[in-house]
């Protein structure tokens, strides 16, 4: 059974068809890359997957359960975590507090008005663990807005990991990173591979082709090619397109 199964997903904004009958299945533990030119509908597909956009037609299944059209908070609670192309952090909070917000144990206490939010040792330990996983252990007390660009990208992933997700959706995670940052991210993703299902939109072909188990190419709102990196390198459509230059 697939961890994620999108079937016939169709989205239109006014007159414009953004996604047209997109079918995509991701197996449990798979790293699935999504690539395609700008404006192809990749982020919209992510938004459908994570509940930000309701599809006009089609369905999304998570571990066999229909989650089509559920609101983002309900989908997040079911185990889909995401990062954003344009970084979205709680800028005034420290790195640790950002991560803490993602912890399911903290979320369960969200309506607690009696206890103090700070000072819970088990939550602090969990948050520190997630920060250590992305190499931010020594920056736990730094406010998110004071972190470097690369560290902010890492923090986004730490927050998503803190959610203990079944599926991690990364929207252009290498965007804006230098070669060191990309290398650090690649090492982190390689460590996560197999432990959780990852879906990543990415323009860095080297990153994607070296890490992904399978890749889907979206163009004009449709999946025009899919397969393993090796299969895609032989794919006629990919070879003819700009994407083929990097594959």
């Amino acid at each position, binding site marked *: 059974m697939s961890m994620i199964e999108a079937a016939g997903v169709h989205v239109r904004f006014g007159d414009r068809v953004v996604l047209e009958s997109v079918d995509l299945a991701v197996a449990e533990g798979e790293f699935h890359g999504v690539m395609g030119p700008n404006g192809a509908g990749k982020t919209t597909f992510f938004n459908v997957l994570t509940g930000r956009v309701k599809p006009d037609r089609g369905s999304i299944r998570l571990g066999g359960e229909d989650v089509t059209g559920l609101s983002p908070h*309900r989908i997040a609670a079911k185990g889909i975590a995401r990062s954003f192309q344009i970084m*979205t952090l709680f800028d005034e909070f420290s790195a640790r507090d950002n991560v803490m917000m993602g912890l399911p144990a903290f979320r369960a206490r969200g309506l607690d008005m009696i206890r103090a939010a700070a000072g819970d040792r088990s939550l602090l330990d969990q948050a520190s663990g997630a920060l250590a996983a992305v190499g931010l252990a020594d920056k736990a007390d730094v406010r998110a807005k004071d972190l470097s660009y690369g560290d902010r990208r890492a923090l986004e992933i730490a927050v998503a990991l803190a959610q203990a997700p079944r599926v991690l959706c990364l929207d252009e995670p290498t965007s804006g990173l230098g070669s060191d940052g990309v290398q650090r991210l690649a090492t982190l993703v390689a460590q996560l591979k197999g432990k959780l299902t990852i879906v990543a939109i990415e323009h860095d072909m080297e990153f994607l082709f070296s890490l992904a188990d399978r890749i889907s190419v979206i163009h004009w709102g449709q999946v025009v090619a899919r397969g393993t990196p090796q299969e895609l390198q032989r794919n006629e459509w990919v070879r003819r397109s700009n994407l083929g230059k990097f594959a």
Partner: protein
Amino acid sequence: MIVGSTTSSDAVRLVTPTMLLLWLVLATVPLWIARIGLYPYLGIEILIWALYALAFNLVLGTAGLPSFGHGAYFGIGAYAFGLCQFDIVANLWICLAAAALAAGVAGAIVALFISHRRGIYYAFMTIAFGQIFWTLSIKSHRVTGGEDGLLKIRRLPADFGVVSFDLTDNVAFYYFVLAVFAVGIVVLWRLVHSPYGRVIAAIKQSEVRAAHLGYNVWLYKASVFTLSAALSGFAGGLFAMAQLAAFPDVMSLHQSGYVVMMTLVGGGLVSFWGPVIGVLLFLTARDVIGAFTNAWMLYFGLLFMAIVLFRPEGIAGAIAAAMQQHSLNALRRRGSSAMRLLFGGGR
């Protein structure tokens, strides 16, 4: 900085040294206020408005929701307190609970309609609902007394079963309001620094991120608005006792603007204590400048503009910045002393 984000040791405390100092100072007010040319009733007003502004700041400062019609809930609380003692039972605790309940219910109804909005649309909706409540208070003569207001509200005794305190005297009532204010401070401090407060502060920074972390943003926005309205109504109940009446004026748009002004001038966007500072400054300015000119609001308005232009984080923010600068200077001084010790004096 953001309200509710502090991870200092104070955040886990129920009562902080600042609170103790504030209560201590406030407890001495009746002893000296007349000597400086002011009067105990001003102290009562300041405490009640401070409680109201703190409740309001849950929405504006902590949650970042621009509510510009909050006077409605303060006024509803005042009317509910009076109506309860006239028509239901003349018991202080029940009538104060009725004030909070009535305002909370009104707030919950409004929250149902506005919590999916944000920014300017949210602000406009709060103004619109505030105006509706204000108009209703003027037009419902048989219930509210119309523009004349609800008169002859009594200061009910604080009955604790074994002992009962008469609150008709202003000094006695001041201490009662101070006790309520102290409890209110503790409750609000804990609320702001609880997991709930943290989520609210997070929603202020990014609704999208909070939703994708699994938080029901609508529910949090609706609940904080309702809570704020209920607490504002509670303060309104105290205000009815103070004034011995309830008038529609406190529900008007310009009176709603006062609490916004107090909160912003004081620094409610960056500090828990901002609203208290703002109320103190506003009401003192009203009486002190008002003694010289009727146009006191002109001067306060100029101060408001200056703060918005040059110190948008308000007085509390300016104090925090000055303290930060002071410790930075002290650090520099220590640094240069150490250099002199290492490398000798200037000669």
